[in-house]
């Protein structure tokens, strides 16, 4: 199963490297959103809860773009049928898609975080970087699991561009809560918050639940 998953992941990354369909669009979307937030708030520098909220909302909305691309290309070009014909576990397809989304998100954040620090963030980013990286990686894990599940669910519907985002946004509310709450003290210059562990725990719980759910349910989405 690992081999099959790795093979599909390698294929996805190669397609992405050559066609560049998802990641550049997501990064561009994030940076443009920062520009919009600058004008919407009419502020040159953000800090505290507003900065944390801006960063997390932007990243969560960026995920929507990635999720929309995740299965659509597969469906349009018949790649999924070939994968279903292959004698591999369906879970391998989920693992590969979630891993691909995870990597996309990490790359996008490598671009978006410095852009955020330069364009909008008031306090220095470097001091809060370790805690922020831990939060982002754990959130990406949860987003990858829930994104792959929602992507597969929405890909079969007639109005998938609408259903996907509508489904994803309520589902990521817990991540927005944990991310924004944990990041807010980092951006007020107060250093690492005491209850960082609590929010990391919530994100870990979220990721665990959705990985397990997706592994259990993914087979039923790809039956035919």
């Amino acid at each position: 199963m690992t081999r099959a998953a790795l093979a599909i992941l390698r294929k996805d990354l190669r397609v992405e490297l050559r066609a560049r369909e998802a990641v550049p669009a997501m990064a561009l979307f994030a940076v443009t959103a920062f520009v919009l937030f600058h004008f919407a708030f009419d502020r040159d520098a953000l800090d505290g809860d507003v900065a944390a909220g801006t960063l997390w909302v932007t990243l969560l909305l960026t995920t929507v773009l990635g999720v929309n691309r995740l299965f659509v290309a597969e469906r349009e070009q018949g790649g999924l049928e070939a994968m279903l014909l292959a004698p591999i576990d369906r879970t391998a397809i989920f693992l590969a898609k979630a891993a691909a989304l995870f990597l996309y998100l990490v790359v996008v954040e490598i671009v978006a975080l410095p852009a955020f620090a330069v364009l909008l963030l008031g306090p220095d980013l470097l001091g809060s970087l370790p805690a922020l990286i831990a939060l982002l990686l754990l959130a990406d894990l949860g987003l990858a699991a829930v994104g792959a599940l929602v992507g597969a669910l929405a890909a079969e519907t007639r109005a998938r561009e609408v259903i996907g985002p509508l489904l994803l946004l309520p589902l990521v509310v817990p991540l927005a809560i944990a991310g924004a709450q944990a990041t807010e003290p980092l951006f007020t210059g107060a250093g690492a918050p005491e209850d960082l562990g609590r929010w990391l725990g919530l994100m870990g719980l979220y990721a665990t639940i959705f990985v397990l759910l997706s592994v259990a349910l993914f087979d039923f989405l790809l039956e035919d």
Partner: protein
Amino acid sequence: MYGRALKPLALATAAGAALAFGLIFFYAPIDADQGFIQKIFYLHVPMAIVALLGFLAGGVMAAMHLRTRKRVWDMRSYVAIHLSIILAVGVLITGSIWAKASWGHWWVWDEPMLVSFLIVFLLYAVYQPLRFSIDDPERQARYASVFAISGAAFTVLNFVAVRMAATYTHPRVFSQTGGNMPREMFFTFLVSLAAMALVFATLWTLELGSKNASERLRRARRRRGREADARALGLDDTPARTAGGSPPAASVSAATAPR
């Protein structure tokens, strides 16, 4: 057969609702703090609990559908979620009225129950659009089941997350154990909860029965239509009459006419 349990269930519901209303207005004491408006508690909280359990039950029934592959479980799950969505609207409206009367605002963000309900409602509001934008009925049932199971798990997770984020200013009419509420209030609350559960059960049975009946009607109609077509085309058991060579064009138009 569906619908057989409907009559006793409906009678029990009517009795339960009447008893609950009687207790609410003539037995339960007026809240010293909030006054008369506190009585909305007997509607709001049972509705919230029943809607929540409805979403969870929808998830369990969906799991049964995926296990047994019986369409009836998908129908049950669908009707439970459908009713819970309607109840959730009621929860949001009554909660909003209560908030306005208690705090002077139509919406308060620091009441975890209400906020969680809004999020859960926004998620389940996509259930029907998702379901009905899939054409193949078998796939529709499967995808809806996956949604229902994920939604049930999310509902629980979401309550944990929102509770963690909230500062606890919820009016504590009763604590986790129900200890600090007068006994009359708690008893009225329990009766209201039972009545609300009965309302849900009755509506669920009724809706399931009606769905089942209209499904059977559609099937019967289709069968009759097919038989009429077959007769018109001379394909039924007694073909001797039409075998004589009625013009094919006439029989085709006759076949399309009765539909």
